[in-house]
């Protein structure tokens, strides 16, 4: 096998690993510590999960499924990654997206609405 073939195979393997890593929550590595530790200001708001569910249907369900079960290449949100992620990490992902991986930025939603979405995401089992 030539050196060129080996290099090509290594690049292919790296790409596959990167794709696997991204669906596995590699975005978590990019969250700044300050953002990671931010508490969810909507935790005590009893209406926040309902408002978040409504926002989810409006903005997220087309890709992630009506109940967040995932659709095609769009990940299932009933996953350990989402369950274990801190609220600040999820809010950071919503604000910044994962542009190169196809997750758009939702910075156009006010921060309050992003926290409402996070509150809803945390209710998914």
């Amino acid at each position, binding site marked *: 096998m030539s050196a060129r073939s080996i290099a090509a195979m290594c690049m292919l393997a790296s790409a596959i690993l990167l794709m696997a890593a991204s669906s596995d929550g590699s975005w978590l590595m990019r969250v700044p510590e300050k953002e990671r530790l931010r508490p969810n200001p909507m935790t005590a708001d009893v209406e926040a999960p309902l408002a978040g569910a409504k926002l989810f249907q409006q903005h997220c369900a087309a890709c992630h499924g009506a109940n967040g079960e995932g659709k095609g290449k769009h990940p299932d949100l009933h996953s350990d990654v989402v369950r274990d992620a801190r609220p600040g990490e999820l809010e950071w992902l919503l604000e*910044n997206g994962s542009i190169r991986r196809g997750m758009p930025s939702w910075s156009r939603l006010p921060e*309050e609405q992003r926290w409402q979405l996070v509150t809803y995401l945390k209710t998914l089992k």
Partner: protein
Amino acid sequence: MRVPTLVFSLLALLVPALHAQENYFVTYSHQMEEPGNLELGLKSISARPKGGNTFVGSALEVEYGVKAWWTAELYLDGQHTANESTVFTGYRLESRFRPLQREHWINPVLYVEFENINGADKSLLEIMGHDGNGDLTRRNDRGEKKREVELKLITSSNFKGWNLSENLIAEKNLKNEPWEFGYAVGFGRPLSLKASAKPCTFCRENFSLGAEMYGGLGDRYSFGLHDTSHYFAPVIGLRAPSGMNFKLSPGFGLNGNSNGFSLRAGVTYEFEQIASKLRRH
């Protein structure tokens, strides 16, 4: 008024400007179309220029999110001028690229457009160079071809629910004419930053208020404000839960070279994940 003309005018006024993500008519923010989504829209402007006939200029817009960092768009332009004619005036192909992967204080987007329109075009999607009231009072002239390249540097920020966007525009008619320049700035925010728990159409979170200002900056040989026109336009928007978006914007000319008053209206509808849906069928 003939029936096709009437239908065109009604469509133009009732179904005017479509851009699910955009808060403005002229100014672009850094918001991109979600990948896989297709948006259909119509942006219209109606005005009665001093010394000219009332017109309705419209742009039918088809926007597709190719990637989260790349949005492509096609515009089909047309217009109706009272006592003159109703004409198709050309098309525009556009792409917007978002070079940075994360949100920053200022988020740049690069915009490239090719226009193949004629001298009768009155969609007024931007004001360039020395554009002024005189351009709106000329009789429809489809003989004048305009093949132009347009570049925009879009910068935009979101802060505490507000969006502030600035566009610098450069345009070149490929027929050996000088570069022309223009600008647009806009700001706006939703009426409520929190979403309500109950489904609703006319609740505050679905309304947005803002304003934009735009105008020409001369050309390569006479850059500046001399002999240019400028406009200020409040914008109100409604995002219906059904996926329809409506926008309305009265525009006011700010100097003697500007048209005094115009009214823009727009409607958009977003087809979500259209590529996946088509694949399934």
